[in-house]
């Protein structure tokens, strides 16, 4: 194996992973940071102040979504790098998710640090591109599985192209797109996405994403025969999170959703802990980490679990928005 390629890949994975770590760190105490940047004008009257607060909340939620989209993109970048390298980039199209997720990651970092309450063309385009890539990738993966001997059999679901994986970049694109729509919404009016209440829409998208990701983990952990009891975590906790988000999406205005927010934080932690568990899983292969160049490819995908963190961050952003904009 070419050592230089290995190192480049490892470097890429490391960058992506550190990107992942930054997300949650930024996420700590999301309420405070943006408000500090608000110029305080003591003479402003109450309604104006409320409008400002709401606008700040919208941008805050938008940035939360950038962070979520970025976490997902980083996960996809690292995961598809490893998996498609393993597949020897047999088909040229296999580099697409690498390029697109790298762009999405960069875009999301840009968005996370952007306080302006307006959409950004380049970001919009990148996110749409990401969503399109996710859709196309899903199509490719379905095609790949379908054409194998036995079609959509367990064997091919386990070992063919993972059907659910490209959904992560689709979700990243969708969440990023939602983020831009949030920034566009005018103060005092209800933030909307395609005329739907923004907070509830995002909650529903994140909830569906959690369910899908959980399904993917369920399939692959079934392949691993749930040999470690912790393998049950990503198929039990996230679906509960999905239900909580769906409930919030369908619920009345003015609820606090305190428990759901705690649950989202828990899911973000689960996503990060998954990295550690998968690293341990790698160590259980022949040769352990000494034989990393083989076992990182063979063992459980280290960069996959943070997609749960990405979706949990999106859930948090949605719940935060609904707190400030009860009707959003």
């Amino acid at each position: 194996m070419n050592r230089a390629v290995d190192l480049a890949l490892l470097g890429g994975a490391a960058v992506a992973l550190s990107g992942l770590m930054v997300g949650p760190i930024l996420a700590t105490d999301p309420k405070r940071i943006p408000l500090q940047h608000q110029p305080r004008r003591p003479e402003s009257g109450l309604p104006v102040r409320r409008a400002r607060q709401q606008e700040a909340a919208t941008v805050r939620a938008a940035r939360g979504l950038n962070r979520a989209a970025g976490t997902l993109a980083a996960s996809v970048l690292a995961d598809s790098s490893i998996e498609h390298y393993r597949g020897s980039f047999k088909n040229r199209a296999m580099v697409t998710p690498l390029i697109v997720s790298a762009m999405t990651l960069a875009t999301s970092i840009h968005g996370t640090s952007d306080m302006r309450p307006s959409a950004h063309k380049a970001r919009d385009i990148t996110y749409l591109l990401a969503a399109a890539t996710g859709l196309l990738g899903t199509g490719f993966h379905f095609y790949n599985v379908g054409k194998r001997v036995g079609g959509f059999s367990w064997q091919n679901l386990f070992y063919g192209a993972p059907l659910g994986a490209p959904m992560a970049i689709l979700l990243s694109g969708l969440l990023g797109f939602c983020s831009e729509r949030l920034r566009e919404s005018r103060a005092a009016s209800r933030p909307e996405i395609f005329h739907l209440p923004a907070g509830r829409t995002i909650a529903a998208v994140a909830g569906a994403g959690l369910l899908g990701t959980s399904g993917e983990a369920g399939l692959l952990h079934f392949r691993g025969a749930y040999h470690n009891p912790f393998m049950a975590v990503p198929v039990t906790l996230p679906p509960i999170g999905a239900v909580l988000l769906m409930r919030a999406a369908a619920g009345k205005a003015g609820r606090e959703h305190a428990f759901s927010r705690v649950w989202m934080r828990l899911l973000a932690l689960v996503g990060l802990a998954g990295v550690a568990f998968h690293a341990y899983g790698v160590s259980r292969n022949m040769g352990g980490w000494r034989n990393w160049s083989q076992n990182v490819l063979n063992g459980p995908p280290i960069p996959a679990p943070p997609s749960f963190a990405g979706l949990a961050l999106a859930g948090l952003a949605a719940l935060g928005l609904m707190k400030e904009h009860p009707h959003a």
Partner: protein
Amino acid sequence: MSDDALHSPRARHGRAPDVFRPGGWVPMREYDNDEAVDFAIIGTGAGGGTLACKLAEYGFSVVAFDAGPYFRPLEDFASDESEQTKLYWTDDRIVDGANPLQLGSNNSGKAVGGSTVHFAMVSLRFRPEWFKARSLLGYGADWPLDWRQMWDYYTEVEQALKISGPVSYPWGPPRPRYPYRAHPLNAAALALAKGCEAMGIKWTETPLATLSAPRGLAHPCVYRGFCVTGCSTNAKQSALVTWIPRALAAGAEIRDLAMVGRLEVEKSGLASGVHYQRENAWHFQRARNVVVAGYAIETPRLLLNSATDRFPDGLANSSGLVGKNLMAQSNQAVWGVMEDEIRSYKGPPSLAITEHWNYEDKGKDFFGGYAYMSQGPLPQLWANTLTGARGLWGARLVEQMKDYNHVVGLKIVGEMLPQESNRVTLADETDQYGLRIPRVTYAWCDNDKRLIDHSLKFMSRALGAVGARDIWTQDDDTCHLNGTARMGVDPDTSVVNADCRSWDIANLWICDGSVFPTVGGANPSLTIQAIACRTADRIRVLARRGELEASARLVARPQLSREVSHAAKASG
């Protein structure tokens, strides 16, 4: 060298090799030769290893002997076909008959763990009707076992070995889900699958005794395909890394490099222990019960070699059937060359299987059945096949070897019928231990030939259907030896009863592939292990009822046994 597994015993001084940790040891209980142990077991393979584990877990005192070395797979197994011939039983034997068997690599092992150390891991259940082959299918002999009970014991073994298998199995009555998922298919397996689809029959991923996910300290399979020369990752769930460590933990002693030459029978007619050679000296281990589990050749050889004045034809042989009804399984193949690279050596050799002709009785002009599987011969074996079976040599051989990466093959495991004339007897020559060596006589009957013929024609069409060229058939190969001490319901027509207890000597048991009355068209190891589990359960029941022979004060220490089996359940 003191740590040479082949020349000096490793299991002694209160410890045995820890197969999971390089250089590691696990504590081992030891028994004095003069201390009459509850069970002396000869052989630690599929039958003996399993039984040693179960009996020790039930609280019996157990010493299990093996003539072979105690290997540490992580350290001792090289990725080298020649080096690994150290796993085979290659002591002198004489073969004759119309179809002399080729003994060695493909049918017998000599190591702690027995032949399972280098077996191909295919772990199949028998078709239920085979247990009543005579009454239901009209050939061979009935087993004294009920398939429904066997179904439960199969489940126990599948769990113990964490068999990786398909999510649902296409043939036979329902079975519980395999504990681990099937492995990914290699190109050779895909060729089998496509061939089956072209022929309109079902196929599936082969249930294999190799891990598709980690298990304790054992690593999952790395798909390098050295399985039949010994697995160096411990992914293979041989007796050496499954039953034996459990047996040690439950207090059994394993004696490696200990060749049992003769069983001792007292005047009372009961067995009293075993004579064995270890470190160039003969010793005698006293035992209340003796279990022979040396595989279908060594088991009858030992019984015959232990003849006394009272039992001049050998032990347990009042029926005259010890050594008779030896059954190999037919192992013919069809080979071809594909345009695309196949690299069939990647991964376990038989990743895909069809049992169609085991379960379908229409369209057959023979009794019995066969399964066929994808193949993955390593290069040296492949060169041997080309020289031996195809008669190639020199430039033609070199030319064919260039196609190695494109070769694809299908091979059967076929049922051969029991015939008394196929048998193990004693030759006059002696081996390195001074023991008379076995003479193995074998001939195929017409039914065997018809089955082989059917399979070769069918597989040739299947290979043709996937576009293989230069298709040729390997007409003469056999594997898996069984029979020679069949179980039954009648002392006149069988050597042991359903509990593997000899009819003639109440404290002499036979627990390995020898007890099979018929072989079916499925690899035997899962059935051997299932029978061993059943035998252990029966022994426990008999002991509790005081029905193990009266003179043996054998009572399973009830308290210990409960504790141990609890612990085993908890850890299993």
